[in-house]
């Protein structure tokens, strides 16, 4: 399946039945409290019962994802970052060597092609830090390939439509 996660509402994209679109700004998602419950108490399930529990299974099941986020200090801004931190139930506590580094093992998580549409970066330096972040995410979030596209918030929706249209053609 395909997944579009955005930190603001996107206009109707005319997507196919295999594509889920999630507006994170409309959901109730608390920040991770670092309790490790999803690893050691209720493996695979977060102990906080809010909307994050509807989203991280979609992340795990997706072969292709588009993440749309504002950039702040070279990081995803708060809305997307909160969700990605809450996605750790899809990983196990156990660590393995992956591409020569230590990383958490994954549960039933598909390798995914990722397109990250980023807006609000203030400088080439901030873009470079964000690119490095996505490079790190590729290890921990199982991106088999990824593209980072910088744009403005106004143009982000058009870019999402263009990238999602490529899915329909392939």
């Amino acid at each position: 399946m395909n997944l579009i996660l955005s930190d603001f509402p996107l206009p109707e994209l005319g997507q196919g039945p295999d594509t889920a679109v999630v507006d994170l700004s409309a959901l109730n998602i608390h920040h991770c409290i670092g309790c490790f419950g999803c690893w050691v108490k209720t493996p695979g399930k977060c102990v906080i019962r809010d909307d994050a529990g509807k989203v991280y299974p979609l992340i795990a099941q997706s072969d292709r994802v588009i993440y749309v986020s504002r950039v702040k200090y070279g990081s995803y801004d708060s809305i997307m970052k909160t969700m990605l931190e809450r996605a750790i139930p899809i990983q196990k506590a156990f660590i393995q060597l992956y591409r020569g580094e230590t990383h958490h093992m994954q549960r039933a998580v598909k390798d995914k092609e990722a397109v990250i549409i980023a807006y609000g970066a203030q400088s080439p330096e901030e873009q470079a830090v964000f690119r490095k972040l996505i490079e790190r995410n590729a290890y921990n979030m199982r991106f088999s390939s990824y593209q980072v596209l910088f744009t403005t918030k106004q143009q982000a929706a058009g870019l999402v439509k263009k990238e999602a249209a490529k899915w329909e053609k392939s």
Partner: protein
Amino acid sequence: MGKIVIVNGSPRAPKSNSKQYAAIFKEFYQAGASEADAIREYAVIQDEYAAIAQAVKDCSDLLFVYPLYADGIPVVLLDFLKYLEKHVPANKPQVSAIVNCGFFEPEQTKVSLSMLRLFCRQAGLPFSSCLSIGSGEAFLTTPLAFMVKRKIKQLAKALQKGRKREMQVTLPLPKKSFVKASTGFWLTYAEKFGVTKEQMDSMKIEGE
């Protein structure tokens, strides 16, 4: 050398490793301090942002202690940084960091430190020193805890003397041994809740 504010950026501040690392730093910093020096400690999830920002107005050094979360700065700290940028203190304290990473490689913290440097640039604050800790989840529970304490002591001294340092430390183990040791660590952790290795190893997400 002067007043320092320590800000714990962990989402689980009262029970965090960041709190333990901050306590070790505090001990070494105090040991070399004069009466004029003061250490104040805050946590972004426990204290009012305004109270922390007020304390920052009166310090020469600002030390963030935080864990690596999803390859970057925890969102609870990110939110505080955004607040602080809007309330930049005129005294321009220099910013330093202790970053705790559960993985073996302290290098995995580099991107988060680049983020902190960007914050400093955007807020007009000078960046000073940093210590990246690999194996940070378990380091203090091992007989080799002295290694990380030694590095924290060096950081405290550097800040006292106004020197800039960039340091890192991890357990002196082959990676495969680290993986084995970490498995034991997590099994013991889960055992307290009556959860078995098989349950921890489940491929199911949300029970599906």
